[in-house]
């Protein structure tokens, strides 16, 4: 515990600290005198990057050719090819064979019966994992059927399955490439970081230009969104393969391909599974946005319900997405786990026969009994009136106090903070951020964060960006203030881990719009509703990392603390907190990323910031501004990432140095 006792000695500390305290103060004082172009960039100095990007992309999508073939023709061919498997899956799962339409519509063959699909999947779950997962699968299936969501769920499943497979395959391939070639890794890392932080709405229009409207555009957008975590996870997983194992492979004379397939990938499977989990979650996250550009399914049900202000029906369809997500996630996790622990032969040939029978018998029966094909509308359950009634009841009885909270927060905290950020001269803000970069990570960090900030300045999105920063900072602060302590508290109660995981998964896959609109009813359009939306989404990583941080504190240290007579609070303050600090800072980093990725969704309740710029240019069909504003969001994310990562590295070094 030398670190508590050590006091920085006089002169050296002062020298170190002047960068930390004096300079920022000096800059702050100077801001009062900064006027003119250094405070607000004049219009003539703004680089019309948006126009160039828009023009360039339009040319690329309409005129550009590769070897005499139009780029657009190539992408269209790809789109048609991608649509085929989606169509087959849809025929199989949702629509059945249909010919003709309108008055001449004829069914040739029914889709697989819901009963068959649910039973066969449950059998799979039973064999791979056990009764628990089989029961969960049954329940999820029953929910989809009884609430009349089955057809939409299968339409969604058809495209989700293809998205997951594509993102998985591409992610693995790119990850392996990056693992083998350091040059490729640097490039890929930069590209993935941008892909992860540019909001989906900003590349939706170019996607539509290249791939046309429809499921394949949705597929492309979803894969771009879900790919980065798979690539990161693959690189990490392959790196974690012990050197001795690789040595063994080399000694036994494995070829490169053999090493990869027989040694590296199997050993890395548990870590690859984390990437797979992220891919599944993020794909289902995109269901709503995908349905905006022609994917249909549950996402479309949510949008339709919300348009008629049927919050209950929207909630039910949203929970349908959660049900799909949970089952898909648990099944893929358990499959990956079995693979890595060598549990094989669980699925016997006899099971295949049973599964085929389970699928075919109810499907054949559905020719005679239509209820096996589609659950009759009259038999569906709904809880929608209850939810609608609840929202309406709260609105009529508790609006007063809620309005008081909203007004106080808005007038007392949010608006003043926003005005402060908007009034700050850009030059001073850039300098301060650069200084923070220098203090945390050195000259390189300072230089790169300053460049990123300057990009925002010269493209003319400074004020919108400051509004984004204000919303993000407040939401992150709130999410951390609630999430971290809660996560830390939960980590001490192992029995709560499972249910909390389930709640967090729900928060991350339940479409935000589902609870955003009731929030609008109670808190009106504007920044306060946006704050609630962002916090409820960004709180999940705060809780997760709070739990993870505490779980990884070495037990010897805690024991040492208790032995030396620390009270529980002292153990926490001086042992647990310092040693989990790097993980906690990474948690803050993830929370910031999540909050930034929610800005675009928050635009749907009427914010005025970068997210709104992106959303509006999508609605207006302007490619350029959408992409440039999206890149500005990415810049903010990268600045936050650079600062926090260097902070985490420092904390880790510090921690290591003390305890060596």
């Amino acid at each position, binding site marked *: 515990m030398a670190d508590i006792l050590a006091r920085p000695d006089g002169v050296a500390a002062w020298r170190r600290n002047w960068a930390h305290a004096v300079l920022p103060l000096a800059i702050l004082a100077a801001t009062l005198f900064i006027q003119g172009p250094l405070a607000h960039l004049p219009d003539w100095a703004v680089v019309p990057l948006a126009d160039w990007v828009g023009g360039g992309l339009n040319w690329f999508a*309409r005129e550009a050719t590769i070897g005499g073939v139009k780029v657009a023709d190539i992408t269209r061919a790809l789109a048609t090819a991608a*649509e*085929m498997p989606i*169509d*087959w899956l849809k025929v199989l799962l949702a629509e059945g*064979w249909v*010919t*003709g*339409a*309108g*008055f*001449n*519509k*004829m069914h*040739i063959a029914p889709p697989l019966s819901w009963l068959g699909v649910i039973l066969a999947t449950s059998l799979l779950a039973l064999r791979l994992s056990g009764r628990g997962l089989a029961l969960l699968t049954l329940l999820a299936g029953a929910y989809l059927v009884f609430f009349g969501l089955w057809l939409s769920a299968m339409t969604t499943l058809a495209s989700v399955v293809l998205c997951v497979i594509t993102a998985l395959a591409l992610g693995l391939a790119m990850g392996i490439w990056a693992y083998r070639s350091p040059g490729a890794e640097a490039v890929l890392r930069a590209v993935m970081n941008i892909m992860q932080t540019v909001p989906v709405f900003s590349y939706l229009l170019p996607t*539509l*230009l290249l791939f*046309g*409207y*429809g499921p394949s555009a949705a597929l492309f957008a979803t894969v771009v969104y879900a790919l980065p975590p798979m690539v990161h996870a693959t690189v990490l997983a392959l790196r974690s393969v012990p050197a001795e194992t690789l040595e063994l492979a080399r000694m036994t004379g494995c070829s490169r391909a053999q090493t990869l397939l027989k040694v590296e990938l199997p050993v890395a499977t548990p870590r690859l599974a984390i990437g797979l989990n992220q891919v599944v979650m993020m794909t289902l996250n995109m269901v709503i946005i995908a*349905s*905006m550009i*022609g994917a249909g399914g549950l996402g479309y049900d949510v949008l339709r319900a*919300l*348009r*008629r*202000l*049927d919050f209950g*029906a929207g909630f039910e369809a949203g929970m349908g997405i959660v049900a799909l997500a949970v089952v898909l996630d648990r099944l893929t996790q358990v499959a990956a786990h079995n693979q890595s622990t060598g549990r094989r032969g669980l699925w016997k040939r006899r099971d295949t026969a049973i599964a085929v029978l389970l699928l075919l018998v109810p499907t054949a029966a559905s020719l005679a009994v239509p209820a096996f094909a589609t659950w009759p509308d009259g038999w569906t359950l709904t809880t929608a009136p209850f939810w609608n009634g609840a929202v*309406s009841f709260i*609105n*009529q009885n508790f*609006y007063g106090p809620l*309005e008081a909270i909203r*007004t106080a927060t*808005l*007038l007392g905290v949010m*608006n003043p903070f926003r005005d402060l950020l908007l009034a700050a001269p850009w030059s001073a803000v850039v300098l301060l951020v650069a200084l923070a970069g220098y203090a945390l990570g050195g000259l390189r960090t300072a230089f790169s964060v300053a460049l990123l900030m300057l990009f925002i300045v010269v493209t003319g999105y400074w004020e919108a960006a400051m509004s984004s920063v204000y919303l993000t900072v407040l939401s992150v602060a709130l999410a951390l203030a609630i999430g971290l302590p809660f996560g830390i508290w939960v980590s001490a109660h192992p029995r709560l881990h499972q249910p909390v995981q389930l709640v967090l998964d729900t928060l991350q896959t339940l479409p935000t*719009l589902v609870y*955003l*609109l009731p929030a*609008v*009813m*109670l808190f*009106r*359009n*504007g920044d306060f509703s946006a704050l609630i939306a962002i916090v409820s989404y960004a709180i999940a990583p705060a809780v997760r990392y709070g739990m993870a941080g505490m779980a990884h504190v070495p037990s010897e240290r805690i024991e040492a603390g208790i032995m030396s007579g620390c009270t529980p609070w002292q153990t926490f303050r001086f042992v647990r907190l310092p040693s989990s600090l790097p993980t906690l800072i990474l948690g803050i980093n993830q929370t910031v990323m999540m909050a930034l990725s929610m800005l675009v969704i*928050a*635009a*749907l*309740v*009427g914010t*005025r910031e970068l997210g*709104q710029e992106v*959303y*509006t240019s*999508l*609605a*207006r*069909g302007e490619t350029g501004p959408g992409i440039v504003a999206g890149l500005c969001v990415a810049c903010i994310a990268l600045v936050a990432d650079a600062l926090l990562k260097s902070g985490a590295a420092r904390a880790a070094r510090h921690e290591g140095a003390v305890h060596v």
Partner: protein
Amino acid sequence: MKRVIASAMLALTLGAASPSMAFEPESDQPIKLMIADWSSMLIDTEILNIILSTYGYNVEKVVADDSARYPGFESGDLTIALETWQTTQDKAFTASVATGKVLDMGELGPHAKEDWWYPAYMEEKCPGLPDWKALKDCAAAFAAPETAPKGRYLSGPVSWGGHDEERVKALDLPFEVVHAGTDAAMFAELQSAYERKAPILLWIYEPHWAPTVYAGSFIKFPPYEAACYSDPSWGENKTAAYDCGKPEGWIKKMAWAEGEKVWPCAYDIVRKFTMDGKEVGELVYEVDVKARPVEEVAMEWAKKNEAKWRSWAACAQK
């Protein structure tokens, strides 16, 4: 692909016994009907889908954004849209037709109107409504804590345009314009206020279900003329444009120009396709308020009005 397999199956299994296919469509290329996110368009497009597919056309419905549709129509990614509202799309539509790549297919029938709207119970709190001048004296009645002493006017999503900021300035109204994020968020606020009989002033458009469910009226601004938006000297305020209400007007059908050569008969049907404004309002009510599926409501209409739409399809009846 699905269609190919399906028709192959059909040919194999049914052989000669295929249903009466008196009319052979000019092309089996898919006709792509655009659907956007509001209900009237979903319903009338589904009706057109039923009609065209009854005559054997290969029809696809494609979701597209209201304002983002034009590149799609110019390149042939979208073939037909039944609703283009003059109120918001006038300029973009005219410009797109001028390229020669897009056809104006005539009016659909219903009359589009949109403007500032208030619930009936606000007349007590602000006597003198619906005349716009009354707004000058009752800003306080429409105020929210963060806009006080100014009134709060909830405008549509930024992407709708609408020139409300300019209108407020030109008519010197003591109001702050707040933009809703989406259409749904806007009506969520209306419902919330209406349940509590609380003050609200917002942008509403017709045909829509809201005016049939909530009692209220449009503010009567000086009526729109083209000159009002372009000529500052026009109207009340001699130095500013936009000193009038929002334009009302047609809802037009549009189509990809080259499609005329591919499916002349389908284009003829689309030109003749019209709906009555009141009829559309009722269909929208069935879907939005009674929560019935669009397909069911459209099929019901098609069954009831078979003679009517068969008469539009004269070219397919030979």
